[in-house]
């Protein structure tokens, strides 16, 4: 049996001639197409360019200016705005610290809470369907409504929390008025607001687990914890990656909830990056606010990338 020499391209095109230099040949034989075909994606390209690319590019440009947002005059200041954010602006670093603390709190609490809810409500009884709907209910509310409901709950004078505590003889606190605790109380609201949504993600993962695995494990004498560790967790681990990533981005951008619950501007104990950026825009520091927005965007991208690297939770199949 003889072996036909030459490249795969030559083999699959028996009628073609063999060029002396295949690389050069690739350059010389471009695909020629009707230019009219390139007109078809143009509307989409234009929309993306106009509404996405240009504003993003402009944000980068504003970030290196001292533009105040309305004046025709401005100066290019290089990286001054970025340096200022980290070295000369304690309000920004305070907001950054608050935001990281808030994200950490919410991600841990929301992931655990929504997983526990999902585990408790996976049974297909009538009661569990009702409870699922009940826990999912906050998700369908607007964040502004949620903010105002919880603002009322936390009010020290007329609020529900202190009213209930007073009935059992306990003096409630100032909640949002206590700088040391305020962020925790908003985190409670955020977890209440979004856990139902994350619970649904977990329920979807749990319902994909074949029941036979549990039956087999029970026959082998595995207890509930062993069943969770060896069957449930491997199946819901990918859902955890989704929940953590989504919750992280969501809590980085809890702008509407914070502004609704804490007012505008929020006190420094409740100031997070998005509210700080908003305040900076309102303070007519457009260039500086644009720089803060870019730092914010980079931070979310970095944290999300780190999570993907660290949380490679995939099912351990055999």
């Amino acid at each position, binding site marked *: 049996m003889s072996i036909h020499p030459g490249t795969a391209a030559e083999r699959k095109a028996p009628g073609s001639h063999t060029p002396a230099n295949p690389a050069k040949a690739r350059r010389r034989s*471009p*695909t*020629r*197409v*009707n*230019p*009219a075909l*390139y007109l078809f994606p143009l509307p989409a*390209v234009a929309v993306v*360019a106009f509404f996405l*690319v*240009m*504003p993003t*590019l*402009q944000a980068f*440009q504003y970030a290196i*200016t001292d*533009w*105040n*947002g*309305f*004046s*025709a*005059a*401005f100066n290019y200041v290089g990286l001054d705005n970025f340096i200022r954010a980290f070295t*000369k*602006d*304690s*309000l920004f670093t305070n907001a950054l610290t608050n935001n990281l603390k808030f994200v950490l709190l919410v991600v841990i609490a929301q992931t655990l809470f929504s997983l526990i809810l999902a585990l408790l409500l996976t049974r297909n009884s009538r009661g569990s369907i009702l409870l699922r709907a009940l826990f999912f209910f906050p998700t369908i509310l607007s964040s502004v409504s949620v903010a105002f409901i919880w*603002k009322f709950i*936390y*009010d*020290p*004078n*007329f*609020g529900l929390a202190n009213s209930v505590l007073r009935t059992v003889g306990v*003096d*409630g*606190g*100032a*909640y*949002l*008025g*206590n*700088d040391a605790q305020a962020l925790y109380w908003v985190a409670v609201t955020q977890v209440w607001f979004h856990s139902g949504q994350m619970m649904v993600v977990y329920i979807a993962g749990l319902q994909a687990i074949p029941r036979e695995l549990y039956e087999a494990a029970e026959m082998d004498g595995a207890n509930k914890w062993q069943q969770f560790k060896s069957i449930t967790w491997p199946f819901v681990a990918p859902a955890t990656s989704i929940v953590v990533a989504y919750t992280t981005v969501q809590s980085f951008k809890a702008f509407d909830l914070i502004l609704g619950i804490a*007012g*505008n*501007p*929020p*006190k*420094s104990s409740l100031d997070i990056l998005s509210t700080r950026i*908003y*305040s*900076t*825009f*309102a*303070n*007519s520091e*457009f*260039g500086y606010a644009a720089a803060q927005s870019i730092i914010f965007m980079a931070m979310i991208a970095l944290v999300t990338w780190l999570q993907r690297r660290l949380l490679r939770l995939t099912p351990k199949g055999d």
Partner: protein
Amino acid sequence: MSQISRRQAMAILGALGFGATAAACAGPGGSTAPGGASGPAAPSTGAVTGKVSFAHWRGEDKAVFDELIKRFAAKHDGVEVAQDISTSNDYNAQALQKLRGGSIGDAFATFRGAQFKNFTEAGIYTELKDSQAVKNYQKGLLSAGQNGDSQLGLPYQVVFPMPMANVDLFDKAGAEIAPKNWDAFLAMCEKLASAGVIPISWPGGDVGNGGQLFNCMIANNAPVDDMCAQIEQGKLKCTDDWFIKMLNQYKDLKPFVQPNATGTAVEPAQNLFSQGKAAMLATGSYHIAAVRGLGAKFPIDLVFPNTTSDGNGKYEGVYNATFILGVNSASKNQAAAAAWIDFLSEPENAGYYANQTAQHVSVDKVEYTNPDLKRLSPWLQKKTALAARFQFNNLDVRNAVEASATAVISGTSPEQAAAAAQKIVDERL
């Protein structure tokens, strides 16, 4: 049509992309600000017709403006005024951008201070110096709308950002409603507390309304009248003795404000006052209509926390001339917008606005029939300081300086609170 290669197509797209990048990199604010460098011009004249957008933040006055709009439309055939109302915070943040296009806010209002300054620099105002409207105002109350020789805006409202008092509770407790000095003020609070009521309802959880008390506390403490401007410029410091003294006086107030005051929003604070649980509401006369709406039936007066020790303070109270009316230089219907401002500035219409909203106005020869306004009218003649917090042009500085007072109420030492505020000021110098 001849065919092109993929490489050529990529080159064309690349060139387009480069063009888009270059376009994106056109200078920010590339157009000259409306109004131009030659200074503001008077609103253009012409027929009073077409649609006028009136932008402001006083949602609570909507019905009153609706009635005034009806009366205005009855005078001018074919004219229509639409209210574009935002909340005050959103208005602060977004109004300038909205107004620049000219489609919103042919006529508009601004806050005194930083917002007025920004609008002035942006060239949003037209010159109202020679308008019919300006002649109707009390001369002494027009300064908040002036920039150099120009009268760009007309400060419409006169409000007193001082604690409002439930006169019945004061009488019942035998408390003095006009304390001469700081000790007398504290003694008054003590009497009210002994009578079983909260002396001061203070919305410490609401940055804007909680900050109004600052106007009273700083008026007689500061060494100069432009104290807040000087703090922002670094000439005066929050760590100065006079400022620390003021923070110590805030500390004196701590037993007399409601429990957990730093977490109280403005509506619950109003409720405490309206329900007779608190003798004073430390916001200002601009909340009279709100507390009446909440059912307050008692007579209301104002109390000035005189912070002097000997009673010889420079000021007997604090006022603010705000809700500055202007005509948008970018408006395409300046004639009708100017006519609307003229209409609002007529004593009869200003009087209707004042009596319906329970707010004094800067317009002269207005007859106040509202019982609350009649009762508070003597304050118009007193020696009152123009509210100092609006001297701040940087909102971060303003919030930080006012937050020092809130921090003291929540337990931070005056020295620490002052140092924290000064740090923010120093960063922004």
